[in-house]
């Protein structure tokens, strides 16, 4: 990608334009630039002059950026409603994943362990796989959602505040969540969740911090690398 397009991409993303619109815009601009360069070459310019003239005809960086940023319909949802993208949506995904995990636990208990008082007993055979799917979903959901928030924030060049908020909320919820299961009167299986700093306060805080660090680390690393590469290109310029 020519350097001006690289700068344009960064400007558009930082202005909140959705990545898919940016990608398509730049792809069409690159095609247009190729056509303009060919036209200028046919008119007798050498390659370097033809490219310069083509860039001038394409438009200034400010105009190209403004043409996109002034149209609200190109703004990403993360830019329009960050509270929904980094607050509500991750919570919704986490609740959905945990509902699925609880369903696996409840149904597995009924299928494989109908006689036991609790599903938390040694298991064998197919039950290991079945309960394993639920366990994997339960334990990895907060981490995967945290990484997802980081990836979205990185793609859209968002400031750190909203992604950090989203990851912190997920880490707090993930670190304090507990599953309980038992038979209610009549013998029916009951599974549920609660959020508490128990059985030990230190353990829960450690859980939250571990989850927070593991979730946010890739995003922070990306920011550091990005800042370094930006510093390097600024020095070269």
């Amino acid at each position, binding site marked *: 990608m020519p350097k001006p397009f690289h700068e344009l991409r960064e400007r558009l993303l930082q202005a909140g334009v959705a990545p898919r*619109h940016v990608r398509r815009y730049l792809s069409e601009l690159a*095609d*247009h630039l190729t056509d303009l360069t060919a036209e200028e070459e046919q008119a007798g310019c050498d390659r370097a002059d033809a490219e310069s003239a083509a860039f001038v005809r394409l438009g200034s960086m400010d105009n190209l950026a403004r*043409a996109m940023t002034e149209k609200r*319909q*190109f703004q990403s949802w993360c830019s329009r409603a960050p509270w929904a993208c980094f607050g509500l949506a991750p919570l919704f995904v986490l609740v959905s994943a945990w509902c699925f995990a609880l369903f696996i636990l409840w149904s597995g208990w009924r299928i494989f362990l109908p006689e036991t008082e609790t599903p938390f007993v040694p298991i064998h055979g197919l039950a290991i796989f079945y309960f394993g799917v639920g366990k994997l979903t339960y334990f990895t959901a907060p981490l995967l959602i945290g990484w997802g928030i980081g990836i979205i924030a990185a793609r859209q060049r968002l400031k750190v505040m909203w992604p950090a908020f989203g990851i912190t909320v997920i880490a707090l919820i993930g670190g304090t969540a507990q599953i309980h299961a038992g038979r209610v009167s009549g013998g029916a299986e009951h599974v549920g969740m609660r959020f508490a700093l128990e059985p030990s306060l230190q353990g829960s805080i450690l859980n939250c911090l571990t989850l927070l660090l593991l979730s946010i680390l890739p995003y922070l690393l990306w920011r550091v690398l990005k800042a370094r590469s930006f510093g390097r290109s600024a020095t070269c310029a």
Partner: protein
Amino acid sequence: MLSMASRETNPNFMNGVPELLILRLLQHEEMYGYEIVQAIRGRSEAVITIGEGVVYPVLHALENDRALKSRRITVNGRSRIYYSVTPAGARRLADLAQNWTNLAAAIQTMLKGGKYAEAIP
């Protein structure tokens, strides 16, 4: 976005003009961005020159509004996105054209003096 014979035009006055020109050009044949810009320049005898790169946000916005549809075609080894007008786009073109005709007629009347010609020095 648009300039008239290299003079800057008040953008507010040009509101809706890029859409009108693009919809009119694409009414009967599909074109890709570069072709559209060249066609505007050619058919307006270079009176209207469009800032070439900024045609794409207009095209994308029209497509978002379902006034245009696009398809990718490979020609001579190069992939291009061709745009054409939808029925909704045709209706929008008719509205824009009517508005523009009314506006142009009103301005023409004003320039010629019209009803109050004697009052204009």
